[in-house]
């Protein structure tokens, strides 16, 4: 079922999603694009750190840690 405005930090460990839109500010957005987090790409939440923040996501074959406050700005669609 499609949920509008689902955020990346709401994706549970082990679940996948497709990136829809990045609402972060310009510099963070560019950094995220650089590491391959582009709209349309598939992403999986793989790990959570001991405190639950940051979490690590599988992005285009690489595992990358992103803080919840940044993933909170990324709109995704569950899949």
């Amino acid at each position, binding site marked *: 079922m499609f949920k509008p405005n689902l955020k990346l930090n709401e994706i549970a460990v082990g679940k996948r999603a497709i990136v829809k839109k990045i609402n*972060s500010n*310009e*510099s*963070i*957005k*560019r*950094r*995220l*694009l*650089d*590491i*391959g987090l*582009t709209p349309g790409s*598939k992403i*999986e939440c*793989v*790990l*959570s*750190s*001991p*405190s*639950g*923040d*940051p979490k*690590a996501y*599988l*992005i*285009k*074959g*690489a*595992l*990358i*840690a*992103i*803080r919840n406050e*940044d993933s909170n700005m990324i709109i995704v669609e569950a899949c």
Partner: protein
Amino acid sequence: MKKKTEKIDYIIALAGNPNVGKSTVFNNLTGLRQHTGNWPGKTVSNASGNYIFDNENYLIYDLPGTYSLNAHSTEEEVARDFICFGNYDVAVIVCDAVCLERNLNLVLQVLEITNKSIICVNLLDEAKKKKIKIDLVKLSDYLGVPVVGSSASKGKGMKELVKKISLMVKVKTNSYLKIDYNETIEKAIKTVESNINNVNLNKRWLALKLLDDDYELINSLNHSLGYNIIDNELEEVINKAKQILLENDITSNNLKEYVISAINKKAEFIYHQTVTLGSINYNQKDLKIDKWLTSKWTGIPFMLALLATIFWITIVGANYPSSWLFDFLFSIDKYLKQFLEFINSPTWLIGMLVDGVYRVLAWVISVMLPPMLIFFPLFTLLEDAGILPRIAFNLDKYFKKCYTCGKQALTMAMGFGCNAVGVTGCRIIDSPRERLIAMITNAFVPCNGRYPTLISIITMFLIGGSLGGFTSVISTLLLVGVILIGIFMTFLISKILSKTILKGYPSSFTLELPPYRKPQFGKVIIRSILDRSLFVLGRAVIVAAPAGLVIWLLANIDINNISLLNHCANALEPFANLFGLDGVILMAFILGFPANEIVFPIIIMTYMATGQIIELDNLEALKTLLIDNGWTITTAICVMLFSLMHWPCSTTCLTIKKESKSWKWTLISILIPTITGLIVCFIVSHILNIFL
């Protein structure tokens, strides 16, 4: 090692994303012909080295690993400036076959700047395990440059790479890879492009950067040209072109985004044309290790256990070689004396050279070398295996609470080896504010020059004599305790700095957790001995020798039958007493500014009033000496705390100056740990004196 007089025929730049095995490729190509890398002093790159092929000498610069050339951090800036303006013949871009799509991003950015490139698709063995197939021929067709496949850790593909490089250096071309942007941007580029003159760069790319207001790049360009590229005429054209963009709602902010998405799109296209995917799942074995290393209950305890294990191995392992070296070096000095007497040297010279310079050197070497030879390889193994980024991952939350970022955990870890290295390592931190904080607080991590002192004091004063086999375990635990105090202070001071002179909010944080890789034991050991241990030891020797001389002079020049050293110590005594120390100890810390390793020897030397370091059979004798000179458990604890928290050594200070480009921040980096140490010692000594 390469001699400076050797002729260099070609220069190769090695670029690539982090964690793609770039340094493995580098090590494979250069073997042991490397210049000390990864240490302060190199501005261009992490390391450089050379190799000979067909009687021609190739010099390779290993550039910092970066995801893009957008220059978010200092490391990226260094890499970008070298790719743009560096005087090299071929750029080799190393890619990770497992995540080629992301790597292509950087490849395309480099190919826009230089066509004298070769792509090295590394880690083909890992890709094969994941059933990822890459059509290298097709990839080469799309990119317009040679592509070599490799598994550098097994040495595969290196011969072909060397050969392709040797062909490429002789090719002269000036066509660049073209990335298609939308119609408006293309129009704006064309307007500017035709007005750029006399620049040996891809004009199309440069036009885009001029439109993009990439000031840092333009500054670097002007610097390398020696004049301002933007003259009145060009400025007019740029403004006209920007007008075209604005009319189509493209501002300087979203222009960058258009550019990045165009590159991403091309990367995606090429990727889909050349790669057939097997499994996209994360490696299940890695996932199991990760769950242990990062889970709520086991993550932090595991890290502490790891830290303790490394120090335990270092303490136990260094014990015997250290005393052997000590016995050996101190047994030679009488022959040195005999020799100097034989050639009729005056007595004062013999005293100065043997009792002053030689004995301080002998002490520094025997105390430092064994722990370094154990600690550095162990640490490099952790680095190689991919454990360190997990530590940063676990600790990021706490750093964020102090308004900094988890990468500071990595620079702290480097500080265990050498604080100067830790300070240089701070380049990986993107935000300048967080980077400064990491640099200022790095001294709170005890470096290799300090924990021998800490361990000796722990063993003498904090552990009751006869614990037998457990002594080393308890020493280790207490040492870890001391280190935890240092880490706590790092957090505290970081937070205070973030609230006061370095105000700001934590920036974003992205950190790659690379797959676990079996470290290449043999190579790691050789590398870490050559690059790290000998380098640090060399530095210590260079500063210890003159320091030995100065100390000998201070100890042997008498005024009113009291040595200068004692005069100074007496003058410092009342001040030092406030902090649970004595004048001699404080004097030793001051004289130890060139190298922390010599602090303890100076203390001993002064107490003995012999004006020379003499051999002490064992720690028991040393303890008696210290107690006779008024040491109590309070003194021992305060010396440890002050050793943990005082001014960074001279090398670290110079490195901070170089990295921060500011005397102000260097001074602050000296003052903050010193004041912190004094305050802590003051409080602790006064509290302890009430109870003891």
